[in-house]
């Protein structure tokens, strides 16, 4: 078979989700036996693109050619059979089995139900050995480090003759020394006739590893270039964030008042020595990549996770439990709307008053007319699109579901609202409505903490911006016309 120059050609690829075009007319080529990096902010469309390639979701329109032939995968298994393997952040290895058993998992050959040793196993083991001799085939996978588990997965992909291996943030959870070894192996894959699509938020890795880089932004393909043609980080960052205009932000008038929340030397399994203040009426943004520790910070303050250090709310130490935090005046809009925020099988009326049942009850008995009135009030003020208070929350759109979660938190009459990824996965209209709500609350004197991995969001609404990287607080900035978005991206991607 004549091998084409490009292992993968993507033409006019489109993927629509309700209300959002996640991938918008994307076309680019990936050259055979190269390391091709894919970068872009959260929401740029990288993950959706990868999901289409791996058969986890289906395209709306467009064409993909693999080795010059039309490619269509209906399931991850089919994608693998056709030559595209993926190494996800959540590794697909079984801890309780040995390395050898993991390598052959799902393709065991049997005689009368008994496992048979075949050439296939031997091939796998020899590939494994050539990549990383220190891993023994008889070793239990649970005894391996994360990096070595990744190598086991790479070996599996190589041995099954994958043309393309997609690696999604492989360095997010491994140490510096292991990164070096992993990179050596990834570079070596080019000689084994494998093309690597490498996704990472850590820009330095792209310069160290990549042959080509494709930048995506807002679902569009911005550019594909050989890495040596890119001068430095800042050129790449410019491509990633474009000429974003943050005209919406209006600096806060007047000085900030008293500190309502004081965090001192907060550390736990994820966070490293974090200190800051939140003032009355202030909107504070915490910006960082996935895994930077934003959610963990919110959870520690809310009393869900354990921590060392001191958290003072209105001058008092908070007991570590969410119900106490709510009582004290803190409410959280959690990261995962459906699994952590919403009671999907209950009605809107069932959801809204949950965090402050005292307001609609007396002596433990619910006053249903008050309950209904309060629900209608919040449907109106947050403009939740529904024809009834009795509509099941699961039947609302993502944006309206998020508004219900907001209503829940507002009903708690909290003085401090923590919003973890408040606009994730909702359409543009609902997004700007939510920003409006946040600004209004701040004017009413509420303090708001926004935890987000979307820079425009942070720059649109926050007065003060804290930058997180790998669990540490790297910088503090006042928002304003002189704020430097390139510097922000530089810092949160691990630059000095």
């Amino acid at each position, binding site marked *: 078979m004549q091998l084409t120059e490009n292992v993968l050609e993507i033409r006019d690829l489109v993927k629509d989700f309700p209300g959002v075009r996640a991938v918008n007319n994307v076309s680019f080529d990936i050259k055979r036996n190269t390391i091709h990096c894919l970068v872009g902010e959260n929401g740029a469309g990288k993950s959706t693109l990868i999901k289409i390639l791996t058969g986890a979701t289906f395209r709306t329109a467009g064409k993909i050619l693999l080795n010059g032939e039309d490619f269509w995968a209906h399931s991850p298994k089919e994608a693998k059979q056709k030559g595209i393997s993926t190494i996800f952040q959540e590794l697909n290895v079984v801890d309780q089995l040995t390395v050898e058993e993991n390598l052959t998992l799902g393709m065991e050959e049997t005689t009368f139900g008994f496992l048979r040793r075949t050439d296939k196993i031997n091939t796998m083991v020899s590939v494994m050995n050539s990549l990383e001799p220190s891993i023994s085939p008889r070793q239990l996978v649970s005894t391996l480090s994360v990096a070595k588990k990744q190598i086991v997965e790479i070996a599996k992909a190589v041995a099954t003759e994958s043309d393309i291996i997609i690696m999604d943030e492989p360095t997010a959870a491994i140490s510096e020394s292991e990164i070096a070894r992993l990179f050596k192996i990834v570079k070596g894959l080019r000689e084994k006739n494998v093309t690597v699509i490498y996704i990472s938020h850590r820009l330095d890795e792209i310069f160290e590893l990549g042959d080509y880089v494709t930048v995506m932004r807002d679902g569009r393909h911005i550019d594909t270039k050989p890495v040596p043609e890119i001068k430095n980080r800042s050129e790449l960052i410019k491509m990633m964030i474009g000429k974003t205009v943050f005209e919406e932000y209006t600096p806060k008038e007047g000085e900030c008042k008293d500190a309502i929340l004081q965090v001192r030397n907060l550390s736990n399994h994820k966070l490293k020595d974090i200190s800051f203040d939140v003032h009355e009426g202030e909107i504070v943004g915490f910006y960082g990549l996935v895994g930077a520790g934003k959610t963990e910070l919110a959870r520690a303050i809310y009393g869900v996770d354990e921590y060392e250090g001191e958290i003072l709310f209105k001058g008092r130490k908070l007991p570590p439990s969410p119900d106490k935090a709510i009582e004290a005046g803190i409410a959280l809009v959690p990261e995962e709307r459906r699994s952590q925020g919403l009671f999907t099988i209950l009605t809107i009326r069932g959801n809204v008053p949950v965090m402050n049942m005292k307001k609609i009850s007396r002596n*433990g008995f619910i006053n249903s007319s008050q309950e209904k009135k309060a629900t209608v009030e919040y449907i109106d003020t947050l403009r939740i699109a529904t024809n009834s208070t009795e509509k099941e929350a699961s039947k609302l759109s993502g944006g309206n579901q998020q508004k219900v979660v907001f209503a829940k938190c507002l009903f708690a009459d909290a003085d401090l609202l923590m919003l973890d990824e408040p606009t994730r996965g909702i359409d543009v209209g609902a997004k700007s409505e939510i920003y409006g709500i946040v600004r209004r609350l701040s004017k009413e004197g509420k303090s708001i903490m926004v935890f987000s991995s979307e820079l425009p969001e942070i720059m649109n609404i926050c007065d003060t911006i804290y930058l997180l990287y790998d669990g540490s607080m790297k910088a503090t900035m006042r928002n304003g016309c002189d704020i430097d978005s390139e510097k922000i991206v530089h810092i949160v991607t691990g630059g000095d």
Partner: protein
Amino acid sequence: METKPGRKTIGGNWSNESFLTVFMVGVLVVLFGVACAFVPNFYQPKNMINLITNNWFIIILGIGVTFLLITGNFDLSVGGVIAMTGVLSVYFCQGVNVSKNVLANGLGLPYGAAVALALACAVGIGGINAFFIARLKVPSIIITLGTMMLARGIGQVITRGAQRNTSLPDVFGVVGDLSIRGTSIKISVVIMIILVIAAYIFEKMTVSGRRTYLIGANPVAARLSGIKVARHLTFLYLTSALLAGVTGILLASEFKAGVANRATGYEFDALVISLLGGVSIAGGFGSVLGMFVGAVLLSVMTTSATGLLLSPDWQFTLKGIVTFLAILAQRFALDRRKG
């Protein structure tokens, strides 16, 4: 704000809960009609009343089991708790050293104290359930199977595997024998009806009742919304055990005996009537009223089946089949609604 019921899906704008209850009531009406037409003497008023009054103990158990099921948890210990509480109330009440037969000798406590102590033991079983399930987060099915064995085992140790029924004061049998003047309706049935009404009020009107649903609908969101999940589950397990204990006291009084094998399989009956009444095994919805309907439904089915063609030996088989049918009906009904 209200809209007209949609046409596309069955039951349009109803909640799944009321839809399932109405669905099951419909099944009940149909079955009832069929039974009246074909089963001899089924339509007689006395039989109608018996359909409910013969099941008072299962319905009382069903209250606790239903609420726990709504939170997504099981309580299989209730049958064992009935046996244990009954046996203990007898043992505490029997005279001291009145006979050479060990099974005739007890602690000689006054009836009130014996009942209170036996109920305390029942609540203790509920406490064990709560500790493991609510605090240590062990799956409820394992723990309540364990306490089911433990409770019945205590009953068996105290009765030496048989029963205790001698040297009891007269007062012991009074509650179980009482009936409404002029009828054959026992006081236990009245207690059952009062408890069902109380449970209905709890379910529909109280904050605590609402919490039950929230925990079942999404335990993670419930915790993040400030609900003390462990505390509420503890409350429900203690209540369920207390209700089983009360049932045990009433049954022991009625039979004037503490029997170790009493109420075998009742935990399953209580589960079946909850499922028949539309309580979701996944948690989040269901109702006491539905459970009541389920109890009548099961009663109609077993009575008409045995009255018509089956010998009583078939009742376990029948209940097994009914369970599967109930779950299939839930699935069928809810799938049709998705549209």
